[in-house]
Every structure is written in structure tokens, then in C-alpha cells.
């Protein structure tokens, strides 16, 4: 598949935003921190979520009709995501406002719980958009929503550590430790997905694609000389070396590099650098996630003549 920047930005930004909110809500419910830390955290999470939402509009051919996409929530995970994302943003806003206005403890915890549920639902929706497509075998696994969740939580916890180092330093070591643990977990699951996909055997072959039982079939013409939507949308068009380089860079940036920086939870600069490195790694990871997927329709588009 061709990686779309709009979708890469959407999934990585809202993942970090959800993770950041979950990190803040956990401390809100079970720990202690000043209200201004939570207000700033809610603003940061909303900024991440808003940027992701804005990026998603660039994926649409007709963005002015985007409101229509809430219609088919009974069948479409994309439609569910379209509903859950604004609902989650509204609950983050309400939770931040509750802290700002100094509402009662019960109200704040209730809003944190609602937001946490919506964050989890949003992780599920985003992951299932890809995992529900049976024909994209690289994505059709429970590891897809699990990885979206784990990587989002890891980057959110790293962001929370940086935010705490800035506004409430006593919390930074705990957040950094949690970011290390969740980062390691997410890294292992992503490695598991890579190992699984390396062993995949495509279910479709050229023989099943055109229904002729013969081991040697070659395409002579694909019906168009200058390419088509099918050749543009479903091929990443990069050499193997680029894919390998992207894979190694995300394997270095998603966990090992930020992990080394997270060992210094007193330094705001190093924690901010950890988040920047991890986010860059997540962009590479998401690019690779799309490029790695091999669509069966590509069997029909192997030669131009």
C-alpha cells in the first residue's frame, strides 16, 4: 500500500494524545498533582488530537462532506472512529475544564473515567479499521489494534514525563519509568507483528486471480499505459533498501533511543528529546506499517505494456 501522510499523522498524533490523557487520568484518579498540571496536560492532549483530526481531512477527496461519515457506525469501523474521536476530544475538554474550574473530586474522576473509556474505544476503532480487512493479511491480526494501543500509550507516557518535568517534576520519574515499561512492551509486540508478517504466505496468486491453473503466468498488459488509480494507490513504489532503512530506523527510534533518554527523568530537555525521537520513530513505524501491506489487487498490475 502507498503510505498516506494524512493517515500516518492522524494515527500517530491521536495515539500520543490518547496515551497522554490516559497517563494523566491515571494520576488524577490514583495519585496527586496540582490542577494546573492537569489543565496543561488536557490542553496538550487536545492539541495532539486536534492536529490529528486536522490531518485526517487531507485524506478525503471531499472533506466538506466529512460529516456524512458518522452514518454507518453499525458496520464500519471508520464510521465508529469518526464518532468516537470527537466524543473523546469533548470529554478531554470537559475534564480539563473541570480541573480549571475546580469542580468537585467526584465530577473530575467521573470525567476522567469516561475519557479513559473513550480513549480505549478509540484505540480499538483505529486499529480495527486496518485489522478488519481480511484481504490485507499483514493487518488482519489482533496484533494491529494491540500495537496501536501499546505504541500510543508508550508515546503518551513519554509525553507525560516531559510535561511533568516541566510543570510538576516530582511526577517525572514515575512517568519515565512507566514509559520505559510500556515502551518495552509495545516494542516486543511490534517485533512479534514483524515476525508474524515475515512468515505470511499470500492467499491469492495470479492463478486464483484470473482463474487459470498454471504455475507460470506472466502479465503482458494491464489495460493502461500511463498507470491508473490501481498502480498509484496500492504500491509504495520504493526500492527494497528504503523499506529496510525505514524498518531499522523505527526499530531504533521507537524504543531504544527514547529509552536511553528516559533514564534521566530530571532533565526536561532530555525527556522532550525522548518524545521527539519516539514520535519520529512512530512516523517511520506507521509508514512501514502501510508500505509492508501487500494488496491482492497488485496481482493484476504487474506489467505495463
Amino acid at each position, binding site marked *: *500500500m502507498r503510505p498516506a501522510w494524512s493517515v500516518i499523522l492522524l494515527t500517530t498524533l491521536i495515539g500520543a494524545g490518547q496515551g497522554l490523557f490516559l497517563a494523566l487520568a491515571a494520576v488524577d484518579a490514583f495519585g496527586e498533582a496540582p490542577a494546573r498540571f492537569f489543565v496543561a496536560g488536557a490542553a496538550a492532549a487536545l492539541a495532539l488530537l486536534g492536529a490529528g483530526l486536522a490531518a485526517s481531512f487531507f*485524506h*478525503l*477527496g*471531499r*472533506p466538506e*462532506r*466529512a460529516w*456524512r*461519515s*458518522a*452514518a*454507518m457506525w453499525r*458496520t*464500519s*469501523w*471508520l*464510521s465508529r472512529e*469518526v464518532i468516537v474521536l470527537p466524543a473523546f476530544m469533548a470529554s478531554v475538554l470537559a475534564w480539563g475544564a473541570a480541573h480549571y474550574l475546580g469542580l468537585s473530586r467526584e465530577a473530575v474522576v467521573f470525567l476522567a473515567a469516561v475519557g479513559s473509556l473513550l480513549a480505549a474505544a478509540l484505540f480499538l476503532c483505529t486499529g480495527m*479499521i486496518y485489522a*478488519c*480487512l*481480511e*484481504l*490485507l493479511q499483514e493487518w488482519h491480526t489482533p496484533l494491529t489494534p494491540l500495537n496501536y494501543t501499546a505504541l500510543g500509550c508508550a508515546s503518551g507516557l513519554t509525553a507525560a514525563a516531559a510535561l511533568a518535568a516541566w510543570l510538576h517534576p516530582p511526577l517525572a520519574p514515575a512517568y519515565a519509568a512507566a514509559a520505559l515499561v510500556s515502551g518495552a512492551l509495545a516494542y516486543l509486540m511490534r517485533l512479534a507483528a514483524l515476525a508474524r508478517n515475515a512468515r505470511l504466505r499470500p*492467499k*491469492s496468486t*495470479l492463478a*486464483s*486471480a*484470473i*482463474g*487459470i491453473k*498454471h504455475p*507460470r*503466468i*506472466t*502479465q*503482458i*498488459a*494491464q*489495460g*493502461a*499505459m*500511463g*498507470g*491508473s*488509480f*490501481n498502480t498509484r*494507490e*496500492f504500491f509504495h513504489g520504493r526500492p527494497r533498501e528504503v523499506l529496510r532503512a525505514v524498518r531499522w530506523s523505527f526499530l531504533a527510534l521507537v524504543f531504544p533511543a527514547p529509552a536511553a533518554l528516559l533514564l534521566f527523568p530530571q532533565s526536561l530537555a532530555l525527556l522532550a528529546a525522548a518524545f521527539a525521537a519516539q514520535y519520529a520513530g512512530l512516523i517511520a513505524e506507521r509508514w512501514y506499517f502501510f508500505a509492508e501491506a501487500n*494488496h*491482492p*489487487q*497488485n496481482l*493484476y*498490475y504487474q506489467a505495463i*505494456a
Partner: protein
Amino acid sequence: MTQLALVIDLNVCVGCHACVTSCKQWNNAGEAGPLSDQNPYGAEPTGTFFNRVQTFEVGEFPNTETVHFPKSCLHCEDPPCVPVCPTGASYKRAEDGIVLVDYDKCIGCKYCSWACPYGAREIDEQQKVMKKCTLCVDRIYDAKLPEAERKPACVLACPTSARIFGDIHDPDSQASRAIREQGGYALMPEWGTQPANHYLPRRKTSVHLHADELQREDNPLKVDGKLPRPATSDPALDDVTSW
């Protein structure tokens, strides 16, 4: 229930692209609006098509066979593109099984094209909505046309009658009979989409000859050599003697 479909005979298709051009003409000039092209007269012409003829070579030289393979939306009975659509723009008609896109509802997110294993959907780069074969839905029910012309444009254009149009749920339709009697098959059955369109396989007409059929034992022309050679003094009587 009715399920309209095409049955495409690969044994007869000669790869002339008449179905492609007639489809493009009808759907470009029809009421659904243009089917846009980009750079049509330049070095890299591209555009939106509902139907494409591809060519494959089966086997290895010198034992090869060229197969022309027309490809369009297969109007699956269980279409994977429909449930994923977030707006409901992509739908399957209950009355005749045609899978359609409502161009006024489509937001151009391309998710349906990801869900289709056949690459049957193409986005119109000008209108920014997803498009695909409609089985000429604006033609097959047009009461102003003579009955014989109420068929998809590609079917009418095919010079070798390689395309059969009909209801594959009606066991007596020409399409159903062709599938049943000539080994009609579906593409990529592994995804469980149950395509309505079927393809008829290549068929070889061959005669098996044995050596004794090439040299017939009872060939009357060869009977001379089998008989004892008569002496020259023997009387001549038709073909049993000689002078």
C-alpha cells in the same frame, strides 16, 4: 432474488478493447457525469475506467498461450466494499444485486478500494469520488430503448459475443446456463466475496489420432501390395492380375 451479472467467455475474447471504449463512452457521456481523464494526450495518459482488458501469457515459450482478461466490478453477492463505507455511499441494491456508489454521498476516503481484492474501484481525480462499473444501470432499465439494447454497453459492443448479461439467480437465464454448462468460475474465491460475475474458461478442441488411424489396415488404395503378384502369363482381370 435477482442478481444481475456478466459472464465473460475467455475462450472467445480476442482482446480488442471494444468493451473498454464503449464503456468509457457510455459512462462518460451519461447522466452520471464525466469519467475524467488526466493528461489524455500526453506522455503519461491516465484516467478512470470501469472496465479494463488485461493480457496474460500462460506457460513458457514455446508452449505459451495468450489470455485476454476483461476486468470490471464483479458485483459480489457478499461485497467487502459495502460494509466498510462510513457514509453509506457504497451500497448493494436489493432488487437486482448491483453494487453502486452514490456520488453525492461519497467523501473520497478510498477505504472501499482497500477492501476490494480485485482493484475494481477507481477514484475520479476530478470529481474526487470513488467510481466503478454500474452494469450500465442507467441503460438496462431504459424503456425508451428497444428491448434488445437494454444491456450494458460492453455487452452490446463485444464483436465476438464474449460477454453474456443476465440474472444468475434465474436458472434458465443464458448467463446461468453458460456458468453451469461451460464451467463458469469466480475470481479469488479465497476471500469469500461470492462474485456475481463469472468467467468461462479457455477450451481446447482436440482430436486424438492413433498410429493405426494414420495408416489404415483396410485402406483400399493399399490393397495392391498385399496380394500375391500374378505371373505375366496369367489372364488380366480387373485388379487381381497384371499384364
